[in-house]
């Protein structure tokens, strides 16, 4: 029932784990659909040039949700924040050949990137205003 790429990410998920959420250079994104039991945490480590040098995720949910988050961590590593924000759920769904009922999993993954970037940016602003 699952596509090969989904199975591959599900069985060998990339970048599972956590980054220090108190680090000012780490952005933590939390998204989910609690009623279905899906929850996704995606974290990014950003360097001074706005490049994502590391990404980690932890997802509770179906195989497609795990595969979608695993895939986007691979995609965003080494990219700039703006490039990461440009990733669309349709690209994730296409890459994993998600069936229509699983499209929402790719939407969650896209939202997780946005949520992580938003968290990173608000932490950066706070740290700048503290210094000045």
């Amino acid at each position, binding site marked *: 029932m699952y596509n090969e790429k989904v199975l591959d990410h599900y069985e060998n998920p990339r970048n599972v784990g956590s980054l220090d959420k108190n680090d000012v250079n780490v952005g933590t994104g939390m998204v989910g659909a*609690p009623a279905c*039991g899906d929850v996704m945490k995606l974290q990014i480590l950003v360097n001074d040039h706005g490049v994502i040098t590391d990404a980690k995720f932890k997802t509770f949910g179906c195989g497609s949700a795990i595969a979608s988050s695993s895939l986007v961590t691979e995609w965003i590593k080494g990219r700039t924040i703006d490039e990461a924000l440009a990733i669309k759920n349709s690209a994730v769904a296409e890459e994993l050949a998600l069936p229509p009922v699983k499209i929402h999993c790719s939407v969650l993954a896209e939202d997780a990137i946005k949520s992580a970037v938003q968290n990173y940016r608000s932490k950066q602003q706070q740290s700048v205003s503290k210094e000045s």
Partner: protein
Amino acid sequence: MANPSRSNFFAQFDLPVAFAIDVGVLEQRYRAQQQHWHPDRFATASATEQEHSLQQTTLVNEAWQTLRDPLSRATYLLQWIGYQPTPEESGDHDTDFLMQVMAEREALEEIDVTAGSALSQLEALRQQMEQEIAHAFSEIAALFAGIQEFNPADRQRWQRVSQLIDQQRYRQRFLEQVDQIEEQQLYGR
């Protein structure tokens, strides 16, 4: 009072439209009506009367099933009010809650089911979850106090109820998982 032409499960049992209802009274009235419309009592009645009794029995059962469970009662009340979440509203979950979900699911995942302490750890999680459920139901009850027909000004209030209903569903599923793990542990695979 909201749209009187709409079927109203509360009226079926002569109860006021409210979240906080007397479940004992509900059950009494359900039993009485169930008896009243029982097919056995219409065995010698005309076909039309038999059909009517069957319809009434179905309606009474549906109303009872919907109102007896607080979560389906809350869901029904939102419908009665006329609140429908937009996709943005239903996807909007507070980060604190999601963090909590993550921590709880991690705690469940980390329990070593072969360890002797597994049962007491599972029970601790169950208690925590049951407390959260009770807490959320009291918030739902407070939000439903003095309900009336939909008023756009109350949108946020009903969105919160809808969000709490989703959260309760998660907790129910979590408890089901705890049950499953415990059963496997007690009775083998």
